[in-house]
């Protein structure tokens, strides 16, 4: 590669909507996105338990609820109302079912309760709402749930009793989270807790999807930790020059997307980003450049990878379903966080992950989405993105390996990011959320819309 090649790539896509496209192309893009978004939203209609508002983690049989997926559900209902896919009353009912359930849930922190200290176990039984899979009390997944609750709180601003109740419960759920307890004996927030063994520590270091967690913690009017918590968390950031791109490094793409589903990071900066003369939105755009460049270089020689086919992120994988592919021994992984450039990478991509970067680099992403769907239509099952596909694992019919069913996280981020690209609805709602504004300010964010 010539020295300036990547710089040119970076420059080429530095300005959104740089290409001139005629009206027909714009309409075609809009139709494509509308179709994908509608289908992705359909996941939540399909898998929600209307009695308690809980939403299944995946479409696979007997799969439990993931509280993070409930957070995504609460966030996409407003978009669905706006687009006429769900009536406002239906949406309020679904939100209220979920919020009432969590409000009234067993918070004793016993092995089969629902939560503790305002946090909730990661996986819950779809019917009873009790802990399942011996899962951990999850701080990040609770944050995603509460981000959804606050999104609904901001959208449903009507004067009806139901909408007033919705806002009240969302507020109550947020206020009762004891973020300080979750610090345990550290400056940062612990990643989990189990009644059987206490706090868990997974050793996460560096940039992660947790900005939204820290912003919500810092915005709490009841249990906010000290502002030092954000500095302590961001102390392990790594500002790297990789493939001639300067960015806040994180390998998997979802890290550059999840907090962005709720928070509009355009033009606002914390201390770190001020120092780097960048912002998190721009950073996520650069992450796209790095992903594309990795796929173009394709150091491990995987089938399908190129600048129009990428998307390494957390998702399902073949899990040693086929120990040999194309004559080369590879270790195939199941559900794991794949990343660039240091892996793990087993040749499995996530089409939805490329699409979820739409707001950051729309032209690049749209061309990628089209190319990937054209080449591997089998990854788009029942009109939705599968969690992962592996172009190097081909079956007797010539189709590549595709993850079974669908995952709620994938459909949620797709629905939200398309909405943010099209109308910025969720961003606009959360820009007005006083807790988020306070949290951002306490974390040291300034500038832009803030």
């Amino acid at each position: 590669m010539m020295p300036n090649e990547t710089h040119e790539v970076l420059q080429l896509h530095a300005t959104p909507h740089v290409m001139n496209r005629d009206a027909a192309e714009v309409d075609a893009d809009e139709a494509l996105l509308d179709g994908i978004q509608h289908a992705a939203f359909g996941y939540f209609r399909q898998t929600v338990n209307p009695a308690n508002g809980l939403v299944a983690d995946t479409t696979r049989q007997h799969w439990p609820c993931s509280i993070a997926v409930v957070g995504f559900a609460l966030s996409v209902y407003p978009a669905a109302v706006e687009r006429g896919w769900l009536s406002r009353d239906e949406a309020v009912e679904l939100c209220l079912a979920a919020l009432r359930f969590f409000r009234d849930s067993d918070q004793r922190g016993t092995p089969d309760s629902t939560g503790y200290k305002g946090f909730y176990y990661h996986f819950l039984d779809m019917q009873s709402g009790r802990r399942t899979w011996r899962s951990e009390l999850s701080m990040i997944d609770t944050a995603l749930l509460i981000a959804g609750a606050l999104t609904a709180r901001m959208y449903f601003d009507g004067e009806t009793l139901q909408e007033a109740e919705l806002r009240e419960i969302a507020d109550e759920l947020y206020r009762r989270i004891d973020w300080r307890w979750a610090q345990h004996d550290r400056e940062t927030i612990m990643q989990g807790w189990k009644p059987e063994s206490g706090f868990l520590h997974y050793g996460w270091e560096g940039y992660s999807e947790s900005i939204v967690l820290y912003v919500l913690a810092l915005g709490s009017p009841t249990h906010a930790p000290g502002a030092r918590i954000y500095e302590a968390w961001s102390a392990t950031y790594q500002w790297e020059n990789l493939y001639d791109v300067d960015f806040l490094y994180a390998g998997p793409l979802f890290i550059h997307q999840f907090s962005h589903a709720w928070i509009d990071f355009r033009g606002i900066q914390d201390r770190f980003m001020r120092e780097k003369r960048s912002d998190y939105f721009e950073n996520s755009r650069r992450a796209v450049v790095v992903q594309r460049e990795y796929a173009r270089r394709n150091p491990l020689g995987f089938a399908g990878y190129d600048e129009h086919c990428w998307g390494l992120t957390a998702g399902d994988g073949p899990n040693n379903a086929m120990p040999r592919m194309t004559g080369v021994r590879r270790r195939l992984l199941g559900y794991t966080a794949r990343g660039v450039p240091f892996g793990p990478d087993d040749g499995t991509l996530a089409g939805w992950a490329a699409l979820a970067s739409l707001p950051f680099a729309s032209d690049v992403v749209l061309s990628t989405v089209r190319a990937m769907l054209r080449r591997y239509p089998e990854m788009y099952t029942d009109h939705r993105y599968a969690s992962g596909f592996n172009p190097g694992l081909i079956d007797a019919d010539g189709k590549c390996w595709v993850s079974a069913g669908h995952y709620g996280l994938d459909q949620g981020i797709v629905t939200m990011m398309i909405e943010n690209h099209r109308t910025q609805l969720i961003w606009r709602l959360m820009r007005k959320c006083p807790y988020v504004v306070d949290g951002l300010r306490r974390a040291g964010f300034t500038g832009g819309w803030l």
Partner: protein
Amino acid sequence: MNLTAIVPQRSASATTIAGDGAESERIDNVHPVDWRNPPPASHYDLVIVGGGTAGLTAAKAAASRGAKTALVERHLLGGTCLNIGCVPSKAILRTSRLYAEMHDADRYGACVPGDVRVDFAAVMQRVRGVRARISRADSARGLTAAGIDVFFGQARFTRTDALEVQGVTLRFGKALIATGARPDTPAIPGLAEAGYLTNENAFDLTRPPGRLLVIGGGPLGCEMAQAFCRLGVQTTIVQRRPLFLPREERDAAQILSDAFARDGIEVRLNTRALNVRVDGGAKIVDLVSDDYHSTVVVDAILTGTGRVPNTAGLDLEAAGVDFDPHRGVHVDNFLRTRNRRIYAAGDVCLGDKFNDTAQASALIVIENALFGGRRRLSELTIPWCTYTDPEIAHVGLYARQARERNIPVKTFTIPMHDADRAIADDEEVGFVKISVKERTDQILGATIVARHAGEMISEITLAIVAGVGLGTLARVIHAYPTQAEAIRKAADAFVRTRVASYRQRRSTAWLSSLRL
């Protein structure tokens, strides 16, 4: 399997495997059976306690500069490094890598040999041969010829300026404590009764255990787990922390985890061994990860959970030297103890228990103790390397340490898949990361993960010590194709950002002038 069956009996006179020529040569070098301690001089400029890396380095340096020097060793000259550490472990790693390459021959366009059988006895014989050969440089007779009085026996300080060995008093102007460290044993119920390996006896194995549990994910545990796995041993490694090599950066540790899994090592992170019991010759180990309990059944257990300093039996109180069992001998930045006559160097007093650090600290002591020097330990730039495959080497600050010190830091990263030689060698796993103080070319530190990272890190160490900036490294011609070119590519990337920044400033200035 009973450990005593696979760890041979040692001869009574010294630590050696009976009847082994290489071992006999080594012992003849590092503790001759017929050795007679010399008559002591009336006064020594320097008495050194401990004949490991630090002690040998200090003794040779002091003697070569004319100081009357005595060296006291209670066991084997060469210490951990030669006898039970770096030397044998690197020898066994080399052979294990060869076996891994034989199994992977098709990656290199070669045929996988039809019958790859591990000849464990031959592996260990080679280890002993390597050890014997390197021991020649540390021989007692060689030291004597260099003018050093070598005493074997346990040293005990009797006064602030004297110590005793084998009933003989050695009076000193200055003394150096360099007694090293020994394996720390994890407090796991039943472990001692079941028997376990450490680096002190693992290299004496004559046949491999069928199933091995390695406890500890530090450098030693990682190296040994990979080596034994590649020699055909079914290996499990448990590590209490979420990642291996906790001080290294996340990507390095992750790459190592992936490499282990590829090799077939069963990796158990966030896991503790609760207890050990023996049943039918097998060792049954109960493990727990958070609240998930499991059991592994193995033939041998190897512990690699750190090292503790050797301070026992020295009567340091009599010498007025402060110490504790965890930190070892307390020293100041000049490596001086509370007794201003007595210094310490190497593993007995340093947090970084590396061979190279022991050497460097010993030379500081010689300078400060004998020649009025004021050299400080904190001035050392210490690289280190874990010799797994890929190797993981580091020097200087980590990015997180720089940020903790409010130093703005930027890291230039070159994946090894961008180095032509790494591609040609099919050794693309890893990276070069060089961190600089932002908006300068001052190198703060570097991490290299590569097949030969230990060799490559020296260039960065040199640059840091000599004050050479990353921009200058871009002007250094690196032989093509070499894996070290990845370092130059990082430097090139740095230069490109500077050029881009300069162009941007020029452009901004030009636009401003237009507005005027």
